[in-house]
């Protein structure tokens, strides 16, 4: 084949692949999209039967969202919540992850910490919101601390479980080849722990958003929660729904940008040899 014919052939190949790619995308995103459209349809029906003061239409909500994002203040409010979520969750991942891994390897530490993890897991978020408001006042710190304290036990439990459920036979194998404890952890265990932690992390991320917004709402700190509080005092249902939509979108964006790629990398091998 002459070099000049090559791009042409490639183009044709791509042309033939297009319907295939479309079909694949269709079967991958189609059902989710259909479910979403069904939900929007129901929402529209509800809006029509209850009226705009109880439930605005999806279109009115979209317009409110566009209004919020049309001004830089809107982005700043969303950004404030997102940054607090990132800060709180990072803190929780560092502390909960380190303690969880340590507890997985040291049964004594596990016995020491597990009751605390159980207590913290059972604490209602609103209790922390009230406590931190009294301790820190209406500040960034209060929101970040609440997010961190709510997600740390989740990450802790996930990391400890990751250590405990790892395949010990692989650990033994590595010991048989003379691997030190640190080398075995780095080369064999870490991957298994991360694989266990990834889905837990997705749950913790969603929890972080809920807790951050609740905390902002109660402490009236600038952020999506604060904006919701304002919408409540004005009884502005359009604004309220728009902020809900924005918080869900922010969560989805963060999950698809940060958590999904990581999970895909960690779990790629599981799909192998299956299909």
């Amino acid at each position: 084949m002459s070099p000049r014919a090559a791009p042409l052939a490639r183009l044709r190949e791509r042309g033939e692949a297009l319907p295939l790619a479309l079909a694949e995308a269709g079967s991958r995103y189609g059902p989710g999209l259909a479910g979403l459209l069904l939900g929007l349809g129901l929402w529209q029906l509800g809006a029509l039967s209850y009226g705009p003061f109880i439930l605005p239409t999806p279109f009115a909500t979209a317009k409110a969202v566009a209004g919020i994002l049309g001004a830089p203040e809107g982005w700043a409010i969303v950004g404030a919540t997102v940054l607090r979520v990132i800060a709180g969750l990072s803190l929780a991942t560092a502390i909960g992850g380190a303690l969880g891994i340590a507890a997985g390897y040291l049964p004594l530490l596990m016995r020491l910490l597990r009751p605390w993890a159980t207590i913290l897991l059972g604490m209602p978020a609103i209790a922390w919101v009230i406590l931190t408001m009294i301790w820190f006042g209406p500040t960034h710190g209060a929101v970040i601390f609440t997010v961190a304290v709510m997600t740390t036990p989740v990450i802790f439990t996930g990391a400890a479980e990751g250590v405990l459920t790892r395949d010990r036979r692989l650990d033994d194998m590595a010991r048989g080849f003379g691997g030190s404890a640190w080398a075995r952890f780095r080369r064999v265990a870490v991957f298994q722990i991360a694989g266990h932690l990834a889905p837990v992390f997705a749950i913790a991320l969603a929890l972080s958003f809920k807790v951050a917004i609740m905390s902002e709402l109660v402490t009236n700190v600038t952020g999506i929660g604060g904006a919701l509080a304002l919408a409540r005092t004005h009884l502005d249902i359009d604004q309220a729904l728009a902020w809900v939509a924005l918080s869900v979108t922010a969560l989805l964006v963060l999950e698809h940008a940060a958590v999904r790629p990581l999970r895909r990398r960690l779990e790629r091998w599981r799909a192998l040899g299956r299909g």
Partner: protein
Amino acid sequence: MGTLIDTPLTLAALRFSYSGRMVLRDVSLVLRPGEMVALVGPSGCGKTTLAHIAAGTLAPDRGRVLRRYRRHGVVFQEPRLLPWATARDNIALPLTLDGVRPEEARHRAEEAAVRVALEPADLGKHPAELSGGMRQRVAIARALVVDPDFMIFDEPFGALDVVLRRRMQDIVIREVTERGLAGLFITHDLSEAARLAHRIAVMHPKGQGVLGSAVPPGRPGDRTERQLFDYVQSSLAGDPLFADLQSVDERAAPAVCGCDPIGVQRCC
């Protein structure tokens, strides 16, 4: 005859129990330099346990393990490969554990792969994409990659069909004859033992010591099929040492260790 100083591995009066149940008692075995010893015994007699003690992954309750070799390689009963790593990275693992630079580790892994006749195209695949035989080759290459002077094999070919088994045995025989590799080869198959070992040691069916050992005629690699067949037949028929091995074929359902690295079940 060498002195005790030259013996690559000495297992002296080993005793081992799993949570109170004794599975090994007074097990002693001395290997001579450059000697590949096959250890045979019926299922559940404690061969794997002994292999783990020899490899240092289990510590005996009593007795001594004396190692005079530089470095060992181990091939476990199941391949025990990292499911998330490619064949190449699996072979390189012992080097990676040592902290060898990735470039060099890869290079040496590829050399080890050649020794077990693994295709370069397979080195980029994950264990799930490899056949059972290829997985076992990866496990052998992983043991060879550290350039060991002693090898421990624990029934490495138990799950393979006859033809593949034969090919794998030839790889082991070549390593033994060409590199003078000493080692312990655990199997419950007497003809496999007779093919590739200098000497065959027989374990007590309840792990109460090594009953004794027998030396097949010739050396590994130059025994003919005929010789091997005759040796196995006459040993099983006439030698009391091998009396308990007969029952091996109807292996009483072995206590397979159910272990799922993904699921919730704890591994043992």
